[in-house]
């Protein structure tokens, strides 16, 4: 049975909503439940029609309980009068919605997000250092002649410029790699029907590098061509521009992610 992208997206949305109500449940149990629910939807669709349409999916989902009913109420009921120590798996449930999302995100770190984070940590200083070295190298001769200060390294301006270019290039490559690896992580999350990894991991590996890369590139542009207003003004303007650019970037990605997906149907109880 082949399902159209619309139907697949509809199933993903239902599963995602179920998953959000299973935050207090440990990861293994949650995965099992989601797997069973997903299988259930496919079986129900096959019973409905040999070639299911989005309308069939709406009917199937309407026959199923609303995602909120998957919340493990018995676990939640335990919190108010319970003085025993919490286990790690129970902690998210005790922290409320925001805490649950945070802990789940932390638990969801993947190799992509970790590598992306390392590249980000390495890449940004390399970018900054490279930029400074390039500028220092370019003004080396005149600065040394003007100040009369002793020369620590008799490398010449070309060496600083070369080092600057190397570090700058490495920094840019590292940040682009961080974005690319973040993209791989994001794809894995989508392919696993949103059940594998936390959003924090995806955010750190995917969105933060983009924000920083764009901020830095725009900053360089403004610092290099700053006019009579000075560097502070141009830096603030560049940060605002980077923020606006990233807002539209993230918004575009969010729309692209949900394009064509049918609105989930919530069954009446």
């Amino acid at each position: 049975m082949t399902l159209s992208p619309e139907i697949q997206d509809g199933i993903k949305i239902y599963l995602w909503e179920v998953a959000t109500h299973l935050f207090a449940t440990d990861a293994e149990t949650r995965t099992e439940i989601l797997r069973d629910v997903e299988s259930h939807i496919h079986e129900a669709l096959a019973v409905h029609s040999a070639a299911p349409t989005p309308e069939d999916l709406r009917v199937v989902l309407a026959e199923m309980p609303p995602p909120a009913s998957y919340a493990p109420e018995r676990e939640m009921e335990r919190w108010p009068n319970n003085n025993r120590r919490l286990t790690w798996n129970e902690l998210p449930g005790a922290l409320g919605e925001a805490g649950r999302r945070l802990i789940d995100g932390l638990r969801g770190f993947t190799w992509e997000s970790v590598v992306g984070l390392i590249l980000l940590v390495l890449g940004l200083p390399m970018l900054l250092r490279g930029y400074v070295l390039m500028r220092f190298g370019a003004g080396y001769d005149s600065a040394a002649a003007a100040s009369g200060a002793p020369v620590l390294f008799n490398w010449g301006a070309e060496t600083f410029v070369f080092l600057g270019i190397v570090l700058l290039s490495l920094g840019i490559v590292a940040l682009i790699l961080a974005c690319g690896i973040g993209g791989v992580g994001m794809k894995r999350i989508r392919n696993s029907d949103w059940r594998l990894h936390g959003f924090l991991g995806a955010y750190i590996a995917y969105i933060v590098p983009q924000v920083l890369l764009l901020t830095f590139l725009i900053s360089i542009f403004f610092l290099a061509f700053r006019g009579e207003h000075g560097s502070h003004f141009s830096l603030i303007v560049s940060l605002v521009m980077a923020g606006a650019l990233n807002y539209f970037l993230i918004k575009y990605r969010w729309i692209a992610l949900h394009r064509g997906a049918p609105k989930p149907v919530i069954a009446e109880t």
Partner: protein
Amino acid sequence: MKDWITQLRKGLLDFCVLNLLSHGEAYGYEIAQRLKSLQALAVTESTLYPILARLRAEGLLSVRTGASSDGPPRRYFSLTPEGRERLAEMNAYWSDLNRVIAGLQQGRLEEGGHHDTLP
């Protein structure tokens, strides 16, 4: 749904699932359809699948995956030896409970009999 019915059903669902699987393995959708056909139980997917996951985590059920032409692999549930043992205990307890309640309904307190399984 009245509260007392909900509470009573919650306790009984594990028992029903184990009994259903005592007749052979079944996959999630199949179990759901069979239990849903018993209207008095009023089982939904949101009550069934967490129970299956919990019973498996407790070691009372085992799972094997089998291919399905209709989507993701089917997960077939079956009783483990521990599950069969638990079910035997539950069945014995259920029989005792039934007899005691029937006695109470008829206005008599049962004496003697099989009290060994009642706590």
